[in-house]
């Protein structure tokens, strides 16, 4: 399969007054063409910052320290701001975590969708209008003709999120980075929107990175999954492998904490402890303090991120044996 995006040893740090936050600390991954990659992990794991780093929207005090972001073979890290603005919104688009505030309150919906079309296509005015209507229809907004002249405050939260998705899809991107695209929505709409997005991805043949903390959701629509913990990828593989043969204790912990109606477990299992302080990360494995399989070696020696089996990457000294 052809790789659309390949990230090598990417590090994004925040240099705050209190110290350095290693939000993304040396991650390696790739996205194939037409593939959906899920990124999961607890809050603060660096999922969003990974997404922002890919389009280089990291604001001070944050900085991409090192690494390569090879998009169709070109290293985006070396690109200037001007070159990036030609890629953003055209080849790579991002849907943010918080849909409520992502739209500009003083522009109409049409103006905001059209902006992308004006920047990245040669459509004329009439064609742009038609495209706007079509997009709103695609994301399931009733009565699109009339809705175009509305302002964001006249839309509900769910509709706003659809508009943000419509903006992302406006110019047929090659890669969509969707950061928790549905967390702000109620459950029925969540499923609807995710279905819609996967359909559109398949239809347009683009790739998608779906960021979420919800393993259950991602397991249904993604092809592969990266599990992130404290700025590092701890495990990465095909969905079926992660779900059935995961090797990292953290992944196992996440899986066990998914509520399962069929299983009828008395009590949900949780991962003990809390995410460590980002300023004082453990010396060895970041997961050491919370791990139920820890050994002496884990305390002082950082595990290497390695290919455990073909296409199955893991960073753990003592991978779990056997099936789940």
């Amino acid at each position: 399969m052809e790789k659309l995006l390949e990230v090598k040893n990417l590090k994004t740090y925040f240099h705050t007054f209190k110290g350095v936050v290693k939000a993304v600390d040396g991650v390696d991954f790739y996205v194939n063409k037409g593939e959906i990659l899920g990124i999961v992990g607890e809050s603060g794991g660096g999922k969003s910052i990974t997404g922002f780093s890919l389009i280089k929207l990291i604001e001070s005090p944050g900085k991409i320290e090192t690494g390569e972001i090879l998009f169709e073979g070109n290293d985006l890290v070396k690109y200037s701001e001007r070159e990036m603005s030609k890629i953003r919104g055209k080849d790579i688009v991002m849907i943010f975590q918080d849909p409520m505030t992502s739209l500009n309150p003083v522009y109409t919906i049409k103006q905001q969708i059209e902006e992308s079309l004006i920047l990245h296509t040669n459509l004329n005015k009439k064609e742009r209008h038609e495209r706007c209507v079509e997009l709103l229809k695609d994301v399931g907004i009733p009565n699109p003709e009339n809705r175009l002249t509305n302002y964001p405050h006249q839309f509900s939260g769910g509709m706003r999120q659809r508009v943000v998705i419509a903006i992302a899809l406006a110019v047929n991107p090659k890669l969509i980075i969707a950061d928790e695209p549905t967390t702000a929505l109620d459950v029925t709409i969540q499923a609807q929107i995710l279905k819609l997005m996967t359909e559109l991805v398949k239809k347009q043949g683009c790739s998608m990175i779906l960021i979420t903390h919800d393993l259950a959701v991602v397991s249904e629509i993604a092809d592969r999954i990266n599990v992130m913990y404290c700025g590092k990828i701890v495990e990465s593989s095909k969905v079926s492998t992660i779900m059935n043969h995961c090797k990292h204790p953290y992944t196992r912990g996440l899986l066990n904490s998914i509520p399962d109606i069929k299983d009828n477990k008395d009590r949900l299992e949780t991962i003990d402890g809390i995410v460590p302080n980002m300023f004082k990360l453990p010396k060895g494995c970041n997961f050491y303090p919370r791990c139920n399989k820890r050994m002496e070696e884990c305390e002082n020696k950082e595990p290497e991120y390695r290919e455990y089996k073909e296409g199955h990457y893991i960073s753990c000294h003592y991978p779990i044996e056997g099936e789940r």
Partner: protein
Amino acid sequence: MIKFLIKRIWQLVIVLFAVSLLVFIMTSLVGDPLSLLVKENASASQIAEATEYLGLDQPAYHQYFLFVKNALNGDFGVSYRYQQSAIHLIIERMPATLELVVIAMALSIVFGIVFGVYAGAYPNSFLSKTIMNLSIAGISVPSFWLGMLMIYIFGIKFGLLPVSGRGEVGTILGIKTSLATIDGIKHVILPALTLSMGSVASIIRLTRAGIQENMVQDYVKLARAKGVKNRKILFGHVLKNTLIPIITIFGLQLGSLIAYTTITETIFAWPGMGKLIIDSINSSDTPIISAYILLVAVIFVVINFVVDLLYCVIDPRIELK
């Protein structure tokens, strides 16, 4: 819309009623018009005649109704000093003042917004820091002091610009203005700069704060993610959102500019209504004082009305109520 208009007009009536009552009370308490109007050696019958002429023998409420009735007809009485209709005197001097105010306002908007946007967008540059320091000076320095400083530097020391009066006045589109002649423009520079300094400074600070606040909003990030260039984000997305609070301040500033013309006009001997009102206060010329106060009250209400209209144009979330 019509409901909004009616509400506004009703407000205007109430404001004017309150102001007229205040003006009436103040002018009848302060100073005795008779002593100004009649000669020192006037006879008793002359005084009685003047009393009757001014209606001073009537009960107070009657006098007030008479005052309102005349005021509605644009008649505020005759200036004691000039022996001319008070309202006429004011209207005659109004263009000079409005000219000053409009120029000062234009300077505030242009410099205030341009410098403010710059200082907000590049807060760490040397120029931004200079702008911000100067703006503190602009807010804290009293305008009479600044005016005198200007006169000293530009007028006396270097002799670059005239410092007194309005200069040669020409006509543009039927309006008499100093802007029609080079000499007039030279005359207007210093007073307009002095007058605008405070509001330039406030608008700079407000714009900067607004820009900085908006730059970190998610919609800016989305715009950048769409590939919009920084400059377009700044002057499009961000500025439009920032304008909302600026318009409020703009209205308030316009009011205070009109008020401050009294000082500026006095310093620069500018023949506007601000100087007229100071002179009239000094000589207890009540018809002019009352006419001026009521006129300014009307102007304030109108400004507020326009500001509310502008709000609706800029911020779609606000509807006329």
